[in-house]
């Protein structure tokens, strides 16, 4: 069912939380595949399990059962330290609330993930790379600014530059426009499109907003712990509808 071009392949993934004596089944048998270079929107209402799915895809959490293959490697069996390495090398995160380090320059923020790379990158090299990334997101002029001196859109662009510093094949964006006005939202989404096109980076945007999901060629819909739509590439694109609050 999956081919070698699959970047991500999930097979029958379950996630159950044990809250006291009650077992809460959040994911009930998720199977999906995503190709290298795709731009995908992961949509679902709050409580649908989309955040849990994203955490598993982002190697922040591990499934209770099922298999998760990333780039041909079985991630679901890895130790926490191995998963940390995967997060560092293979993926970048962009969050709704930017999560930049306060009182730290944009440049330092972008360079932060380099602290955790296993291979040595000299400070000069790292700086060069960070500058390139900031120029890519159009912030070449504001490298020394602190987050408090940047607008929301600029902060999110710094976060995107940070996510790309290690040249990952995969980028997660968790409600990336949730804290932005519609104009800057559009700019940020356009930037995702450009990065996806130019750098051939797979982008997964997690959102509850159908308008945002629209920018992605493919939408995976999740509801009540199961995927209702778009689990495999090539399935018919559904009309933008539903979801949201």
């Amino acid at each position, binding site marked *: 069912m999956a081919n070698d071009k699959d970047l991500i392949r999930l097979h029958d993934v379950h996630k159950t939380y044990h809250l006291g004596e009650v077992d809460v089944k959040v994911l009930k048998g998720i199977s999906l595949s995503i190709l290298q270079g795709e731009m995908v929107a992961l949509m679902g209402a709050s409580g649908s399990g989309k955040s849990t799915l994203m955490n598993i895809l982002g190697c*922040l959490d591990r499934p209770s059962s099922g298999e998760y293959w990333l780039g041909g490697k079985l991630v679901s069996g890895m130790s926490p330290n191995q998963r*940390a390495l995967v997060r560092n090398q293979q993926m970048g995160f962009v969050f709704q609330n930017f*999560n930049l380090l306060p*009182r730290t320059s944009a440049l330092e923020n972008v360079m932060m*993930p380099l602290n955790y790379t296993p291979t040595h990158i000299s400070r000069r090299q790292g700086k060069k790379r960070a500058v390139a990334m900031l120029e890519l997101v159009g912030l070449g002029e504001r490298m020394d600014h602190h987050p408090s001196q940047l607008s929301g859109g600029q902060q999110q662009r710094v976060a995107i530059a940070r996510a790309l510093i290690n040249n990952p094949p995969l980028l997660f964006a968790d409600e990336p426009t949730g804290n932005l006005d519609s104009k800057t939202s559009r700019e940020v989404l356009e930037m995702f499109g450009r990065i996806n096109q130019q750098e051939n980076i797979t982008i997964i945007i997690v959102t509850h907003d159908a308008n945002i999901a629209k920018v992605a060629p493919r939408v995976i819909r999740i509801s009540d712990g199961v995927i209702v739509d778009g689990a495999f590439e090539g399935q018919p694109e559904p009309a933008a509808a539903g979801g949201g609050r």
Partner: protein
Amino acid sequence: MIYFLTSLPLMMMRTFRTAVVALRRNLMRAVLTTLGIIIGIAAVIATVEIGGGVSRAIQASIADFGANNLIIIPGAASSGSHNWGEGSQLTLTADDALMIGEQSDAVHTVVPVVQTAGQVVTDDGHNWQMNQIVGTTTEYLDVRNWHDFQEGGMFTDLDLRNAARVCVIGDTLDRELFGGRTAVGKQVRIQGVALTVIGVLKAKGGDLFGNDQDNILIAPWRTIKFRLSNKAGADAVTTATGGLNTAMNSLNNLFPTGGQPLYPERSDIQLADAPAPIRFSNINLIQVTAKSADDVPAATAQIDTILRTTHRLRADQASDFQIHTMQEVSQILGTITGLLTLLLLSVAAISLVVGGVGIMNIMLVSVTERTREIGLRMSVGARGRDILLQFLVESVMLCGAGGALGILLGELASWLAVTKLMGWPAGFSPLAVAVAFGVSAAVGITFGFYPAWKASRLDPIEALRYE
């Protein structure tokens, strides 16, 4: 594991930079937090160095008194079951002193000492009660390590032989009797015997036990022994010489004492033949200087042998004298100052613990405050041990910087207290500095570990969501 070891320096470098950046973000708080450590370490340094200064000051004043000095006093007299205590027996003579000087090679200087007490009166009616009237030889001041005179000088060997009526006085006596006027050349009377002041010593201050060392009058020992009449001096002659002193006359007819006869009566021929008559010459004590502090034990042993021989003591007989060295005093004082330093150190150690708790507290606050940052770092690939190390390094750096500042502060305090205020010999103690630095780093690790461990155990998802 090999990867871990080879990447360790790199990891440490990155971690240090991250810690510096994190601490700089909250500089004021970092400084305030560190205050506990700063004060604790400063207290340790100051305590150790001031303690060292005190003990050096004590050593110095012992050395001033004569660290090489030994004092030989006669043994205890006893009759029946009653013991009159140390020094009550009359067994030491000036000849013993001579003998020690000739025969012991560990000894540098030997002086016999005759002590007495009494009222000293000047011609114009000033008077002063003395309890340190010392009869001795010309080398006495060498033994006391006391060489400077305000005016005049020491009596000579000739004065000694002639039992000349001269004396040297201390600063206190000079002030009390002459009060600013020249003392040299004036006469003072002790028990009716007039002595001419030929020298005034420079002030020396209190001794180890606070006794005024300047309240002193020094004269040739024969002068004190045979011209002055009192218990310590002439009485000894009486008891020792028994019936021999029935026909004595006083050389000092100007001030008849009505007391003790001084010399056995001798003919003119005898006087011409032997100007310094043979006398019974019990003395109160003998002061000895060893060649060096290291020679003190050898000197003690030699003196013991010499005196036992000259006193004709059998092997089974107890010595009729006792030898005291300043080393005993020095040891006792060393123990006391050591204990005091230890006491102060433990107080300082408590303040270090308090400071460490402060560090732990603020690190816990910091971990809570930066939960989102920890989550973020984990999401970009930080492992639990990276986070642990980061917070541990932060707390160690806090403590290390606090330790460094504390060392500076402590050095300043000890310099002010020891050198400036007290004038004691200053003492930079490299050991104290090293220990203080080590302790502050240890405090950082000990009290930083729990918060760092707590941070490393955070769940990245929870941490990222933390508000």
